[in-house]
Structure formats: structure tokens, C-alpha cells
């Protein structure tokens, strides 16, 4: 043997001038191994690395929080009266991804992946999915609930019970409607975790550092996880990732799970709830 060479799909190369007939070491990245013989001839073989299993983060449960909960730059707080500026005044969901400590390998000492770095153990998933509901939906005697109207000959109206039920479905349902779209934001989060590029656990399994990656565990890993978090948010809240198949906003509070209109909500206008139509 004259030379061993490993090359991954990104053209990163590891070379060994060892004359040993074997080239052993931990492998974390697949590619092609080429051995050059003393006579100048060369032979190649693929190096196939099988991902470790069981690393995907699973959905965390919905957790109901009260007034004063801070989600990013928003503080959830009951306001009175509830006007029609945003249905989020009645309730909101919040996705807060996070993870605990993790162990990493340091540089692999020998073999085709010498110098590569990887995560040794899956960290704890500290993600939270809080939902918040306005106190105006606590019972049917609040100002908001008392202001809701019975369905009349001129307008279909929702009862407070129906509004509450639709809100809970909108924020925390995991169900699918007849168009196979999620009927709630929690379902979008659960579905988003099926996208490997949006699942922090999968990302921990696959991320590697190269020999030149001199701050792999403290800089590279957290920064890359932030990009994974952004992709997960795109599944749940908006369409940041246009390449992601996103069903969009789940049906709102005036609609059933299939997007059919159910009735109006009597929101306040100018600080007062309008009188009910006859």
C-alpha cells in the first residue's frame, strides 16, 4: 500500500500514507475510500455509514399557561373588551424549542474519518408547546360570553361554547380534516417533526464537524440547531420555508375543522359589544 484516501460527497478529503493493509477507525460520514498500491494502481470502494436510530425528537405535550406568560416578544394577557383586531386576543399557541447538555466526540483519532467530530448522545428535548386562553373564555358569565348572540334569521352566530371549542381545536388539535390538512397548530408541530430537516434530534444525529471546525460543539452545533428550529417554525406558524409543503393556517374560530363557516363572533367595536341582531 502506498496511500489511503477518503473523500465525502462534499469533497472533504482524509489522506493516510500508512502502508498498513487496513485502515480502521470510527466512521460517521460516508464517501469513497481509494487505496493506491505501490505499483500506482488504485482501487475504490464506497464507505456507507448507517445513521443511528431513535434520535428523532418526539412531540412534547401541550401545556396550558396563564396570563403573564412571555413567548418571545409577546406577553399573553387577558384584555377587555375583546375587539375584532385579532382572534389571538382570545387565545394563542407558542412554540419554544430547546435542548439540554450534549456530549460530543472530540476529533476521531484514526481511520477514514480521522479528524471528524460528532455528537455522542442525544440531548434531552426541552421544547415547550404552551397554549394560552383568555380569561374571557373561562365561563359563560364573562362580558365577552354574555355578549355573544343567538343565531337569528339575519345572521348565524356562535355561542361561547362553540368559540371555545373552535379555539382549542385551532391551537392544540392534532387532527386532520377532509383535505388532510392539520386542524390545529399543535398538529402542524407534530407533523413538522416528521421533516428530518426540522427535527432537532435528527439534526443532532447527522451533524458532523470537520478537522478544520475548531469550535464544533460550542458554536457550530448551536448555530446549526437554530436553522433547524427556523425550519420547524415554518411548519407551524408561517411559510418561511417556501419549499416546505405547508397546509397554512388551520381553520379560524368561525369555521369548523373542514373550513366551513359556522357563524360570526360578536367582537367589541369602539370599546363596546354591539347589540345582537334581531
Amino acid at each position: 500500500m502506498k496511500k489511503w484516501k477518503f473523500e465525502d460527497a462534499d469533497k472533504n478529503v482524509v489522506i493516510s500514507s500508512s502502508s498498513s493493509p487496513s485502515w480502521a477507525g470510527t466512521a460517521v460520514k460516508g464517501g469513497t475510500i481509494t487505496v493506491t498500491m505501490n505499483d500506482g494502481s488504485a482501487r475504490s470502494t464506497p464507505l456507507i455509514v448507517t445513521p443511528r436510530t431513535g434520535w428523532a425528537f418526539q412531540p412534547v405535550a401541550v401545556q396550558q399557561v396563564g396570563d403573564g406568560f412571555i413567548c418571545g416578544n409577546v406577553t399573553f394577557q387577558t384584555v377587555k373588551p375583546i375587539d375584532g383586531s385579532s382572534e389571538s386576543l382570545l387565545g394563542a399557541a407558542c412554540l419554544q424549542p430547546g435542548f439540554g447538555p450534549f456530549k460530543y466526540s472530540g476529533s476521531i483519532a484514526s481511520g477514514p474519518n480521522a479528524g471528524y467530530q460528532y455528537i455522542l448522545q442525544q440531548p434531552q428535548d426541552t421544547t415547550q408547546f404552551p397554549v394560552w386562553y383568555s380569561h374571557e373564555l373561562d365561563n359563560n358569565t364573562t362580558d365577552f360570553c354574555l355578549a355573544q348572540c343567538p343565531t337569528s334569521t339575519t345572521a348565524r352566530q356562535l355561542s361561547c361554547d362553540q368559540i371555545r371549542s373552535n379555539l382549542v381545536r385551532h391551537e392544540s388539535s392534532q387532527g386532520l380534516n377532509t383535505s388532510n390538512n392539520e386542524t390545529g397548530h399543535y398538529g402542524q408541530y407534530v407533523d413538522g417533526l416528521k421533516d428530518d430537516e426540522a427535527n432537532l434530534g435528527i439534526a443532532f444525529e447527522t451533524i458532523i464537524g470537520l478537522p478544520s471546525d475548531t469550535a464544533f460543539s460550542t458554536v457550530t452545533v448551536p448555530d446549526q440547531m437554530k436553522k433547524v428550529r427556523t425550519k420547524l417554525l415554518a411548519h407551524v406558524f408561517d411559510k418561511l420555508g417556501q419549499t416546505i409543503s405547508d397546509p397554512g393556517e388551520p381553520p379560524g374560530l368561525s369555521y369548523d375543522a373542514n373550513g366551513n363557516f359556522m357563524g360570526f363572533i360578536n367582537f367589541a367595536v369602539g370599546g363596546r359589544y354591539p347589540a345582537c341582531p334581531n
Partner: protein
Amino acid sequence: MSQLRIKIIAISILSLSSALLLSGQEAIKMNLSHYKLSEPPFVIAETRFPGKAIGFPNPPTLFAISVKMLSHKKVLGPEDVISYEVSIKNVSNAPIDVPIEPDFNKLGFDQNESISYRIMDIDMELNRDKASLVLGNAIRLYGMATRPSTLVHLMSGQWITLEGRTRAYIRNSSDNARTHIFNQPSLLQAEIIMSKAELTRNNGELQQHLFFEDAPQIQSGKNPEITFRIAKSSD
């Protein structure tokens, strides 16, 4: 690290009578070309991302970022070195303190005390058709409120310019990125990642608790296109 050069270009903020006069000026230009990022002496104990609430507007955009290639190469390969200049401009209406200290040790960590500081990481990326690839190592800058020399006070409209250099290697490409970016003209962009951190000692181990802030939008209008050539010439 020792070759780091910091050039103060703007007139001292204290010497100006009105903040308005500072708008549209470069505050600091730093040459980080010879700065080598290395693992700080701690482990990450906890990482939290900012919560995102449905139905509420995103946080206001604080920064605009533009990139200039300093080398004139339009085609790069895995062994090439990329030299670039990143400008980070405060586009909000309020002043912002931005970390500018590349040496973690300059924070003056007392081994027996906990400290809080801010971090700005800058990743160079190639982007095309919604796919992205990170090129090489990040730049990391630290800042601590009790050490004013580690922060620059950017008034609205001011910017800092960072000159950097990295080997243009790719760490983990996905099939999607390979399809859309390799051998295709792609936009060179910088992403800045802001976070707050607390460092504590726990059972003798230095632990960092990392709290990410929402990333500002990436402004791509002035950024150059380059091709990351990964296929062999015979392919």
C-alpha cells in the same frame, strides 16, 4: 488572535452633540482575517430558542446585512479560501449595542463568579432556490455590558464592517442543497445569530446557558453571486 486589527473610523460618539449626525456612518471596521475561532473553555448546559407566538407580528428588523467579496474569484472549490467583507447596519430606530470582541478571555471571567454576556455569530452561506449551505467556520464576537470596550454602540443608520476569511468547505450538505447549489451560481450571504449567554461553574465544570434571540432578516440585495464548484472538471 494576536494579529487582530481594529480600526476605529468614526468620530467618537461622545464628541458629537447630536446622535442624528452619526446616521449613515461606519462605526467600526474590523479585520478578522487572521482570527481563528476556537472552542471556548466551557460546555453548553442549556440552549433555548425564543418562543414564537402565532398571530402576533415578528420582532422588528434590527439589522441589514450586505456582503462583498474581497477576492475576485467567482468560482470556488472545497480547498479555496474565501475573503469577504460583511456590513451590519442598524436599521431600527433605536441604538443597539453590538458585540465586537473576538477574544473570549477579554471578558475577564472570574472563575468564581457567574457572568452574562452577548454573542454575535456570523455564518457565511450560499443560498439559491430556498436551499442554503454554510461555508466554513463562523465568526464569533463577544460583548459584555460591564466591559464597554467589548461593545460598539450603533446609532440608527450606523454600521460596522467586518473583514473575514475562511476556507470554503462544506460541512453537511443535503440532497436538496447539492441539487440547487453545487455548480450553480448562488448568492453569497451572511447570517448573523444573536444570543445571550450566562456562564456558571457547576461541580467544577464551566457551563454556558445559551439563549438565542430572534435572527434579523438577511438583506440580499447587494450580495454577490458565486459558484461552488464541487464536481470534477471531467464530470
